[in-house]
């Protein structure tokens, strides 16, 4: 390995300089304030978890996990998401009497990058998990809260695509007959390979009606009218149930004050074997990757020995900030530059300003090399130099 230069950081690791820190703080606060107003309580979990428990329960691919060993030889992971740690915490401690639990987080998560730059390996996620409520109103609440929280940050144009994994599964199973064949088709959807999907469907020994049903799935996206066409494609109870749930979701979102930003997309498949019902992704203009996603994961807590339904969302702060058009930050720090004779006076003035809630730097003149460059950094500069105000 070549010798590292002193300025180098591991691949995908980034510094946050003061300007970005302020933007992050403002955007984070806009979201967390809204989340708190919906009664969700924030928690923190450890950065390190066991690979065997949280690491394997997480939806993040194995090669993206940062792994290390502890002194006993257990494999640890840097948490790749927050949903699995919260499931662990809820299953082992917080979720007790079967009543809904509303938890929230803002935390850095870690995903190793091998391919190229442009993707941070450590980034902050803000999200909520609503545990123990199996009703569609919980799904609607989570989606509506996500939209409202995003609006609070000033985000202008964004779209939420909503689908239902139960619908896709039911359609595939009733036409194809077994999970193995359904998996092949699910994989094409997951890989977004519509050409491969169509070719595969045409190669299957199915009636032309059934082939048409499978091909029609790819066009099922748009507003609520999609539900009607989607309903006609399925005959099984499971499929009908999924459509009913989406109908209820739509009605609930409307009661919450329907956001125009929601669209249906029946082809949406996020992570294989993770979500179990309604699922969604959120996209914004000007950012090439989804800002975040979420959905119902009724089987995850079982991996931590506790059966409970759950739903939630997670938003990536880095991508959200990229999507925000207006990230100006007003410089609001004032500066008092003093000389030794007037130190006491300077302290008093600084204390007074700080009591008023202003941000004040107190700087001895002798400590500055270039006064012009230094004073430019601040909103205003007060000079307390020389004896009794005489310089």
């Amino acid at each position: 390995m070549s010798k590292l230069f002193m300025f180098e950081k591991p691949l995908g690791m980034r510094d946050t300089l003061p300007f970005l820190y302020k933007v992050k703080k403002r955007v984070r606060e806009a979201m967390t304030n809204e989340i708190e107003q919906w009664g969700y309580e924030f928690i923190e979990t450890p950065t390190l978890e066991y690979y065997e428990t949280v690491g394997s329960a997480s939806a993040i691919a194995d090669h993206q996990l940062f792994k290390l060993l502890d002194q006993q030889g257990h494999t640890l992971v840097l948490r790749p998401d927050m949903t699995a740690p919260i499931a662990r915490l809820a299953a082992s401690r917080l979720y007790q009497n079967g009543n809904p639990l509303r938890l929230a987080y803002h935390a850095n998560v870690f995903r190793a990058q091998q391919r190229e730059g442009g993707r941070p390996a450590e980034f902050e996620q803000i999200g909520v998990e609503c545990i123990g409520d199996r009703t569609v109103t919980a799904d609607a609440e989570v989606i509506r809260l996500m939209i409202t929280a995003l609006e609070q940050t000033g985000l202008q144009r964004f779209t939420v695509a909503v689908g239902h994994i139960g619908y896709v599964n039911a359609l595939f199973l009733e036409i194809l007959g077994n999970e193995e064949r359904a998996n092949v088709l699910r994989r094409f959807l997951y890989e977004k390979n519509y050409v491969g999907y169509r070719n595969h469907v045409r190669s299957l020994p199915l009636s032309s009606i059934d082939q048409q049903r499978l091909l029609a799935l790819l066009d099922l996206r748009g507003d609520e009218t999609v539900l009607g066409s989607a309903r006609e494609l399925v005959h099984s109870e499971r499929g009908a149930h999924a459509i009913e749930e989406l109908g209820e979701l739509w009605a609930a979102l409307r009661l919450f004050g329907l956001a125009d930003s929601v669209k249906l997309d029946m082809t949406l498949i996020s992570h294989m074997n993770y979500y179990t019902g309604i699922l969604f992704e959120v996209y914004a203009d000007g950012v090439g990757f989804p800002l975040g996603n979420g959905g119902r994961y009724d089987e995850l807590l079982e991996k931590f020995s506790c059966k409970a339904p759950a739903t939630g969302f997670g938003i990536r702060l880095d991508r959200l900030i990229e999507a925000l058009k207006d990230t100006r930050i007003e410089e609001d720090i004032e500066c008092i530059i003093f000389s030794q004779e007037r130190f006491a006076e300077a302290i008093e003035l600084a204390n007074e300003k700080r009591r008023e809630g202003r941000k004040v730097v107190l700087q001895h003149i002798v400590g500055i090399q270039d006064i012009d460059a230094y004073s430019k950094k601040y909103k205003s500069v007060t000079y307390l130099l020389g004896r009794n105000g005489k310089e």
Partner: protein
Amino acid sequence: MLTIAMPKGRIFEEALELMRKAGYALPPEFAESRKLMIDVPEERMRFILAKPMDVVTYVEHGVADLGIAGKDVLLEEERDVYELLDLHISKCHLAVAGLPNSRFHDIAPRVATKYPNIASSYFREQGEQVEIITLNGSIELAPLIGLADRIVDIVSTGRTLKENGLIEFEKIADVTSRLIVNPVSYRMKDRDIDEMVERLSAVITE
């Protein structure tokens, strides 16, 4: 406005022809220009001209909404993009080739290719462990001068293989150009993209 990443070279002409057939008024001097970014305001489109291998990168990162890319590139790069349409242009295939009557070296079988991922997963699926040597062009040289026992490359007419005394052993996959779309653009610009898919579908000939 839609930003479309187009591959320079072989595919470019055929892709342009297809788009013109679909009714897009693209300026005639388009192909000769040396500009890398060309705006066509009448169609509310911007074209960026890229290396074929790079088209998928532009589209995955979302700096281009759509792109035209060969299936070979999609297989090699495995990017997170929608593969919406088979345009049925620039037909060719990926194949394993080598010198006639030659066989794999017993201890360290070597394969030279521009497609290291495709080659390694193909031979793994065949139950063979091979060593991959990545080259950027003139792959046919490798077996001639003893760098590798086999090559994995694109074959269209087979002429290059023949003139260099190589023969095709196995076909790996058929290749045509595909219309690819960034997942966010697919949602945010769905109307424009659906319209393009519809217009292109109408003029694609298999």
